[in-house]
């Protein structure tokens, strides 16, 4: 009797969408001379003093596991950093966890808190991982679409509209990937009201906190009454130009953090040791380099966003991160068509907005973490492309 072969895959994984960035990656990688605005990472190489600290730790033979939660010395530095920069106090012994990138911290936050069928609100356009990580944790992602005409601000009433009995948590990301939108004090406070009213957990992805250009940054955990219900997620990738190091951290009230630590100790043991030594140096002596990079991104943002508007791609001024998210609606093309045509005809790689959720359709994500020469050339090519359409 013929039996259909069983699948070895979990149904959840089988149903998971592959990342929309992948298709463009394959296409762009096969071409020569591409200007890439498709990357979500700094174009700076990690500062030498940080690399040096990592090398030194290897020379000194620090090659064994650290504590599950990370080197205490590093957690102390993280606590001091959060207090200094964002005015929030965390206990390094029980409320801070060093993770393998902010990515792992997001995963842990969801797995530690979501019950099967719990709904987690994801603000779109959003970082590509949230929805899938919610699904993998057994939760149900509930998108809330923000609006380009409103600078992709998350409005409290939008959240309230999708809240049900099963709503457990809300993931917010400010500055946002892909829109660059930063939520300001009043907006955060309005969201905080809703969170309190409906007893929501907030997963606050603050990986771009170091990269805000117009106002000083307010951490969601620092908003009145939010610390007790917020899992703060951050890391070294963006602000310190350390994407390849795979190092992040999370801070949360002890009960939640200890639950995350439980998963972490079984799944990961600890973050890589030498990388943690690099991170200690980053927090102790990295401030000036971060400031230098931030300044440099700010200038490029100013140049790039104004130029986009001038060539006819209307774009709001993003307050943070290093993405411009211009509308391409005037061209009549879908974001996928636009990105593909632009890549094939002018060899400029951008990410189509629909990759970040339905409300990203009609937009493209351009990273301006590239040299000024590259940005100027990209604008030239994009103008040529638009003039031809």
């Amino acid at each position, binding site marked *: 009797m013929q039996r259909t072969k069983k699948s070895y895959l979990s149904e959840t994984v089988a149903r998971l969408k592959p*990342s929309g*960035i*992948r298709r*463009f*990656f394959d296409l*762009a*990688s096969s071409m020569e001379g*591409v200007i*890439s605005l*498709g*990357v*979500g*990472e700094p*174009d700076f*190489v990690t500062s030498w003093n940080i690399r040096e600290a990592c090398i030194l730790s290897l020379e000194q033979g620090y090659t064994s596991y650290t504590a599950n939660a990370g080197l205490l010395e590093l957690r102390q530095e993280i606590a001091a950093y959060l207090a200094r920069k964002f005015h929030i106090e965390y206990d390094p012994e029980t409320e801070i966890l060093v993770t393998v990138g902010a990515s792992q911290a997001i995963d842990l936050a969801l797995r530690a808190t979501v019950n099967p069928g719990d709904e987690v609100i994801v603000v779109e356009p959003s*970082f*590509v*991982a949230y929805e899938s990580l919610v699904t993998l944790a057994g939760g149900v992602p509930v998108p809330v679409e923000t609006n380009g005409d409103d600078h992709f601000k998350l409005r409290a009433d939008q959240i309230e509209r999708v809240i049900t009995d099963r709503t457990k948590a809300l993931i917010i990301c400010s500055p946002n*990937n892909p829109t660059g939108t930063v939520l300001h004090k009043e907006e955060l406070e309005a969201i905080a009201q809703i969170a309190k009213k409906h007893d929501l957990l907030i997963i606050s992805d603050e990986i771009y906190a170091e990269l805000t250009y117009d106002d000083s940054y307010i951490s969601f955990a620092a908003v009145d009454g939010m610390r007790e219900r917020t899992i703060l997620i951050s890391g070294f990738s963006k602000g310190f130009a350390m*994407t390849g190091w795979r190092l992040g951290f999370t801070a949360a009230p002890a009960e939640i953090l200890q639950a995350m630590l439980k998963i972490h100790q079984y799944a990961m043991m600890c973050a890589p040791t030498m990388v943690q030594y690099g991170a200690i140096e980053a927090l102790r002596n990295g401030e000036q380099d971060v400031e230098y990079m931030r*300044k440099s991104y700010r*200038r*490029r943002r*100013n*140049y790039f966003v*104004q*130029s986009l508007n001038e060539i006819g791609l209307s774009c709001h001024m993003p307050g943070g991160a290093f993405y411009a998210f211009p509308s391409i609606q005037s061209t009549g093309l879908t974001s996928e068509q636009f990105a593909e045509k632009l890549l094939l005809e002018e060899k400029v*790689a951008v*990410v189509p907005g629909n990759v970040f959720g339905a409300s990203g359709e009609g937009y493209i994500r351009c990273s301006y973490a*590239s040299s*000024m020469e590259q940005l*100027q050339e990209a604008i030239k090519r994009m103008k040529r492309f638009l003039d031809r359409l």
Partner: protein
Amino acid sequence: MKLTEKEIEIIEILEKDARIPIETLAKMVSLSVKETEAIMKKLEEMKVIVQYAALVDWRKVDGHEGVTAMIDVKVTPKRGVGFDEVAERIYRFPEVKSVYLMSGAYDLSVVIEGRSMSEVAQFVSEKLSTLDSVISTTTHFILKKYKHDGTVFDQGDQDRRIVMAP
């Protein structure tokens, strides 16, 4: 003098790339081209921006390799003018690229560029060491320039990132 944030920003950008198109520069600091031009003009007039220079790697140009030497000079300071008078006598020589007053084992650090070693040697023995206040000189020839004024020569600064990433 006290400069505005925008003025300082313009200086920082120009210091790295003096040839940046003014339209680009203006956008980077969110000013109009006219405003940017006015600021540049003011900075030039005030001698905050002293010169727009090119950093050249002469080793790459046949017949122009040249020789650079750093010379430690001990001098006797003069009553009333200290080191300034002798420093001025030295920096007026066209061969001299820079002169610094130093703390430590010697007084003036003098950088000389010449076409050949013997040209530099001749300058030191005939012009520099014969000055009245000069007590002694120690000449160090530069064998290779790795980094100059913050710029690394021959740095492979290609983008190491993959083309698309989250």
